[in-house]
């Protein structure tokens, strides 16, 4: 899933300092799962913003709503009747995708309430870790299911570098060396020989370096 984290409340307050009435929109997708922008977080943020503004003697009116997914036009329709003329700004609690879909659809000032972090998963309750670099051409079959592009601090494809020690990365003793993990896994699976092959230079044009990407699945297209 996309993992995101709430911006500091004061930062969000600053983004809407000129507004009198805002719509705070949550998303029922990834950000609900990672406890950053679901129904509960919408309630918490809206009341915090109201309290802050009350203290400043500039009361703020909030409308709260959470839709199933902000990254899908189908659900965006639910928003329509809430985007009234008196709404000065929309605070989106979705990932960067949701913020953009709302902004593309409605002629309103839309601000993000979250910082979108990465594609990852839950490591334990309350902790999420990055797992996918979204490079557009998966090589996990070569590395025992561990991604060096995003989990190695230098995206080394023929690792590890000289900074790997005691299983940890040179940048931080809290960060696992991806290549130690790859080595251990390939060793366990009896596939160390595969690591002797030189992995060729990657085609980054399949990643964001090729420009904004699109996936087209013609068989399900309506027109």
């Amino acid at each position, binding site marked *: 899933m996309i993992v995101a984290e709430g911006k500091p409340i004061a930062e969000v307050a600053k983004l809407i300092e000129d507004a009198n009435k805002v719509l705070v929109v949550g998303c029922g997708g990834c950000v609900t799962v990672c406890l950053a922008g679901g129904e509960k977080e919408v309630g918490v943020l809206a009341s915090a913003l109201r309290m802050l503004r009350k203290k400043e003697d500039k009361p703020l009116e909030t409308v709260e709503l959470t839709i199933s997914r902000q990254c899908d036009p189908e659900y965006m329709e639910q928003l329509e009747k809430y985007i009234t003329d008196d709404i000065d700004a929309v605070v989106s609690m979705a990932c960067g995708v949701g913020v953009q879909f709302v902004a593309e659809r409605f002629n309103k000032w839309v601000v993000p309430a979250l910082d979108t972090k990465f594609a990852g998963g839950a490591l334990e309750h309350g902790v999420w870790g990055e797992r996918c670099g979204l490079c557009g051409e998966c090589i996990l079959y070569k590395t025992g299911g561990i991604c060096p592009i995003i989990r190695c601090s230098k995206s080394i*494809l023929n690792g590890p570098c000289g900074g790997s*020690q005691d299983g940890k990365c040179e*940048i931080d003793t809290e960060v696992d060396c991806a290549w130690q993990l790859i080595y251990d896994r390939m060793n366990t699976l009896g596939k160390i020989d595969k690591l002797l092959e*030189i992995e060729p230079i990657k085609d980054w044009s399949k990643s964001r370096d090729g420009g904004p990407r699109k996936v087209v699945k013609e068989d399900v297209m309506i027109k």
Partner: protein
Amino acid sequence: MKSGSKLEKLFNQGEFVVSGEIGPPKHADADIIREHARMLKDYVDAANLTDNQTAIVRVSSIASAVHVLAEEFEPIVQMTVRDRNRIGIQSDLLGAYSLGVKNVLCLSGDHQSFGNHPTSKNVHDLDSIQLVKALKDMRDEKKFICGEEIKEHEPRFFIGAVANPFGDPFEYRVMRLEKKINAGADFIQTQCIFDMDRFERWMEQVRERGLHKKAKIVAGLMPLKSHKAAKYMQKFVSGMVVPDEIIERMEKAEDKKAEGVELCVEQIKHLQQIEGVAGVHIMAVNWEEIIPTIVEKAGLYPRPQIKE
């Protein structure tokens, strides 16, 4: 002869090669580079010019190498894959060759979080092994990375790479070295050696795989000025192993600098006895002026000449 560099010729003559290192300054004047070049040129066969080491902005390694060439000394240009993509790297290397540089050392580069621009973006379009292969393909296949032919004047570098016998996983280190050599490395400089036992175990594996016959292995050394430096490296520098005995020895010594020189000379003499070690690379960080003393005391002065 692959490159015809002085370094390559000396290896081919079977000499025990000695190289040094010059760290470029954090300003736009080259006097210090030239001064170090003049100081070292009779005592070592070549010197590395570091490429923004520890990710701190300095005079570029290629510009520094040009100053070294002007002093009639042999540069080894370090090239990391941290700051440039394949377009920048190939372009800079064509430029370096056109300016007379013949030795390149390929590295990943320290992560930018260690340097003075920790909020920068890193590139890593290639990794160090892929860079070695790219240089070999430019030289031997006359091809750019994209496969396009270099119609004339291909850069013919003597290709260096690094190896760290002290990084983990230890069992995989020699296999990775083999990958680098298969990719095209002609010579290898190792991380600074303090743990001689571990280095010897690593060299055993190197010999078992016959790698010392495929590439020249140059042992890295760092003369110590004090026990504090040794302690710092033991504790904070990832991929470095500094045994307690060395720290104790430095701690006990009355004249720390003299002890550091003594230790380095002992290490050189020990390394000369190890089969497959083709030379030493002395990294006297912020202490370049000590290199002549060490080389003399190790009995490695005067340096050999190229036989015509």
